[in-house]
């Protein structure tokens, strides 16, 4: 399978205190076979075309800063080949997603910037009813308070916590709860960088009676520079997916190691091992997976 994308981005510096940035892209992508949207008789992963555009304006005349922005995403799903012939229609998954945000930040001391952020989103499906006979369009909001920090020269990143709410049309169940996110880098030594990432995401699904997948993710990873051109990487990850409207809850623990050898300015090779697993309180969906990959990257 082939994924591709094309895009452009830019930034206009209006003054020292204000700038405006934008980004647009278009591409073809595939959905992981581990997705709950994958059905058993698919001959290949689901594929879609994605159109993305976002704009952000920022103004920070002093310690106090303001930013507003918005984004648009369009998903056009392709029919999926079925084992034994024929295709599976995914037209009911075609949708537009709009998001807008406003953020106020304050640099209250060197290395620390606190902020509050409000986000609104609207997800509008082309078809009023999907394959299971429900209307999946929804809208939601998030209110977050966070901290962008740099503790000495060892720890830097961003953490936030807040509240989220995603509303669906009946009979689909609304989703609400604690919103959170973390993206921290620990520069343990000049040769070792450790990352901690986490997020709370709401992902649309096609399962009957399920409004969305309520995903809570956490990932710990590290990069080690064994030589200047030899880099080892490793990670542990854990995702808990609750299918809202269903008693089903899936757990996705994962781990992996890789080594990347930078050969020259034009070429690098990598060797990866990844372990994935799904455990569930729902029968016959559990799996384990081991994957070894070798890769070649060419660039000019």
């Amino acid at each position, binding site marked *: 399978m082939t994924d591709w994308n094309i895009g452009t981005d830019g930034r206009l510096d209006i003054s020292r205190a204000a700038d405006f940035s934008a980004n647009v892209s278009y591409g073809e992508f595939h959905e992981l*076979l581990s997705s709950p949207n994958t059905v058993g008789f698919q001959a290949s992963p689901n594929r879609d075309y994605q159109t993305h555009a976002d704009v952000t304006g920022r103004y920070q005349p002093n310690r106090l800063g303001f930013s507003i922005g918005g984004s648009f995403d369009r998903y056009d799903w392709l029919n999926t080949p079925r084992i034994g012939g024929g295709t599976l229609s995914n037209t009911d998954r075609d949708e537009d997603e709009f998001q807008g945000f406003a953020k106020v930040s304050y640099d209250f001391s060197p290395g620390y910037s606190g902020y509050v952020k409000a986000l609104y989103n609207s997800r509008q499906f082309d078809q009023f009813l999907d394959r299971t006979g429900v209307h999946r369009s929804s809208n939601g909001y998030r209110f977050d308070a966070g901290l962008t920090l740099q503790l000495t*020269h060892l720890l830097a990143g961003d953490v936030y916590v807040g509240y989220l709410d995603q509303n669906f049309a009946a009979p689909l169940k609304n989703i609400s709860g604690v919103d959170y996110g973390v993206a921290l880098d620990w520069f343990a030594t000049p040769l*070792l960088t450790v990352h901690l990432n986490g997020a709370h995401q709401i992902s649309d699904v096609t399962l009957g009676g399920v409004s969305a997948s309520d995903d809570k993710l956490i990932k710990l990873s590290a990069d080690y520079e064994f030589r*200047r051109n030899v*880099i080892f990487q490793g990670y542990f990850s854990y995702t808990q997916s609750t299918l809202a409207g269903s008693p089903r809850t899936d757990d996705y623990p994962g781990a992996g190691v890789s080594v990347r050898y930078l050969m020259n300015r*034009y070429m690098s090779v990598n060797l990866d091992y990844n372990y994935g697993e799904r455990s569930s309180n729902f029968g016959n969906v559990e799996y384990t997976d081991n994957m070894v*990959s070798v890769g070649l990257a060419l660039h000019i």
Partner: protein
Amino acid sequence: MHNPPQRVASEMPATDEDVKVDALTGIIECLTLLSGRIAGGSARRKGGIVSDVEGALAELELLRRVLAQRIAANDRRSESLRRIDTALDEISSAFRGLAHGKQRSDVAAMAARRERFMPGTLRRAALLLGVSAAGAFAAAAPVLAEEPTTPTYIGMTPQDVGVLQRSRPEYDAKGIPLGGFRLFPSLDANASYDTNVFRAPVADLRLVFRGDAVAPAEIGMGGATFSRSMAAPTTTTMQPSAARI
């Protein structure tokens, strides 16, 4: 957010002589930083010295970027500026050798190597920059005599740059000049052995191949007041395959 601060257009030197002085000053600062760290190396962590060398490399890379912009802006000066760029490239290579030497050897060996390295580097830099070697040593002497305490970064050290984010000039793609744009095409291809391609409860072994290609580009217009980047259409050479094992 962890990258070293970038120089802006207003800080660019205005003349060839300014370019030379700026380049030489940068080299001296880098050597000063390095020599001080090496001199005190026995009391420092081994990794810290390597980090300082990388900081010097990052500074040199910034200088090279400034030079590249000036070469693009004025063809008449390009030959002179290209010689300086070549000098900086050679010095960067020497620094990299020093860094790798440190990773393999102890502080004493590093210090011994420094004694051979620094005068030769300054002499070569002076020659290529068109200034006298004596003048270069004279300019460098008071700086080299001082114990360096502050890196050239403000509020940041090379350690603040993650392993994957730091600059590796000898391995990073240079891109293809495309008018005011610079194109960075890339092509990735992977072959995987998967014990459960369809994530079935019973393992199903398959061999698959996968590839990706991206080609981002950047453009700079009118100093540093506006910039944008673009990605061009790309081709991929992926060979979909699902040969059952």
